[in-house]
């Protein structure tokens, strides 16, 4: 099966504090995401999920290893044009309207101006935001920001969507709407890579999962494999408890 995303022995180290002490955030993480799948990347807060997403988005290069998007080096412009990205907390220019924001990101993707207007209308319809297109982002609710964030990720029609905690901060109705939207996007043939730490969301949406703890990959594979063993919930709970202890130890040291 063709791979949308390949994470090959990726390690990431940061230097922190006054003495620039090295801290290893990701340790030889390796897995791949098949084209057309909805891939859930699970781990507790601080496990290294967002760091890996930054590597996938080409925002930084890994200390060692390789990240490849459809066979291309993730930091290349060609790779970035294949990916749409929704950050964990969608931070956008608040002074822009929904439509203005999409025009901006459309221009950054070097989209043809003649097609941009039609495409904006299309993605706004897709995420159910046509009525808020002229409203400034400062007036948007959290759910609306998530939706406009998805709209900007979809705008240049990328075959791979990377969604960092797309359900984060949403109320139950918002979560359901977001789930439905992701289902709809997956049905249109896109590969979706999303992070989460909410098991019911992952079970409802994903067909592939990978578990990460303390920067190390614990396991990856089809969701059915975990469901057959009936231990996804237990595995995650033990991982999260372990992560809390690891996190305390790392921050305490």
């Amino acid at each position, binding site marked *: 099966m063709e791979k949308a995303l390949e994470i090959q022995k990726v390690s990431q180290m*940061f230097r922190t504090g006054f003495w620039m002490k090295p801290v290893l955030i990701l340790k030889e993480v390796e897995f791949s995401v098949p084209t057309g799948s909805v891939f859930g990347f699970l781990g507790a807060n601080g496990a290294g999920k967002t760091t890996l997403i*930054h590597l996938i*988005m*080409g*925002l*930084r290069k890994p200390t060692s290893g390789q990240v490849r998007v459809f066979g291309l080096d993730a930091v290349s*412009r*060609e790779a*970035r*044009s294949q*990916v749409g*990205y929704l*950050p964990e*907390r*969608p*931070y*956008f*220019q608040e*002074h*822009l309207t929904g439509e*203005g924001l999409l*025009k*901006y*990101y459309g*221009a*950054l*993707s*070097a989209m*043809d*101006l*003649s097609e941009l207007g039609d495409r904006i209308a299309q993605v706004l319809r897709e995420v159910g935001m046509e009525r808020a297109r002229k409203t400034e982002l400062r007036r948007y609710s959290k759910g609306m920001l998530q939706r406009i964030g998805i709209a*900007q990720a979809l705008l*240049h029609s990328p075959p791979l969507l990377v969604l960092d905690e797309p359900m984060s901060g949403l109320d139950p109705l918002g979560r359901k709407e977001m789930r439905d939207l992701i289902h709809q996007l997956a049905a249109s043939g896109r590969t979706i890579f999303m992070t989460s730490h909410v098991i019911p969301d992952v079970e409802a949406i994903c067909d592939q999962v990978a578990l990460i703890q303390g920067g190390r990959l614990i396991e990856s594979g089809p969701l059915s494999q975990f469901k057959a063993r009936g231990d996804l919930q237990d595995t995650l709970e033990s991982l999260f408890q372990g992560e809390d202890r690891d996190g305390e130890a790392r921050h305490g040291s």
Partner: protein
Amino acid sequence: MEKPGMDHKPRFPAAIRVVFAVARVTFKEIVRDRLLYNILVFSVLLFSVGVLASRAAVVMSAERVILDFGLTALRLSGSMIGIFVGSALLIREVDRRTIHVALSHPITRAQFVFGKYLGLATVLLLNWILSTGAYILLLIGFNDWNFSFTATFGWAVFFAGLEGLFMASAAVFFSTFTTTSLSVIFCIGLYLIGNNISAMRTLAVKSAGSFQGVILDALSRALPNLEHFNLGTKLTYSLTIPGAFLTYGVLYGVALILLFLWAAGLLLGLKEI
């Protein structure tokens, strides 16, 4: 359906359109910033002080006082906007994490830096047009609609604008590796030293042979010489300026701006965001 006679071919290549898109959003962001208006109020106050001082002028003619204060207000407002807004331009994007989404698109960091700078440069241009307009009106009004403009006046206001553009590029450069407040401090230092390079050279000559002399000489050669952009004395005393001096000043200013922006693009490329 395509309308007859409509040409959808873009006017600019994609690489340039990306820079313009960043510039457009940056421009809109800056004109909503209260800091900009505080600086504008400051320059209006400086113009007003010029008018008051001209009424009390004894040694100099009142017209010269207005010329001097007006040019100072023009130079300071441009440089202050360049320094204060430029220092926060990239850091604000990093702090608010809006840079993550922008750079996840197929643009280079250098394009992003140029776009941010171009947005600020447009604000500086707008400020320069408004301030120069106010300055000209003041001069005309003060001279009973009888003020004669010289080429020196034109070049003096032009270089005041160029100085603001340079300070903005320096602020963007410093902000790629330090905090907003440190970037402001570095820029103010650069502005003060850059406007006193000849004094520094004189000191270097006086202390020639000593360690202090060597350091002063090296600094006076390495740091940007902003005296090229300050035609205040020439304007006040209506001196003519040689063409070679003007050509050198323009080329020097443009080269400095491009150098600082290139270095900023390079440093942002290396920065962990």
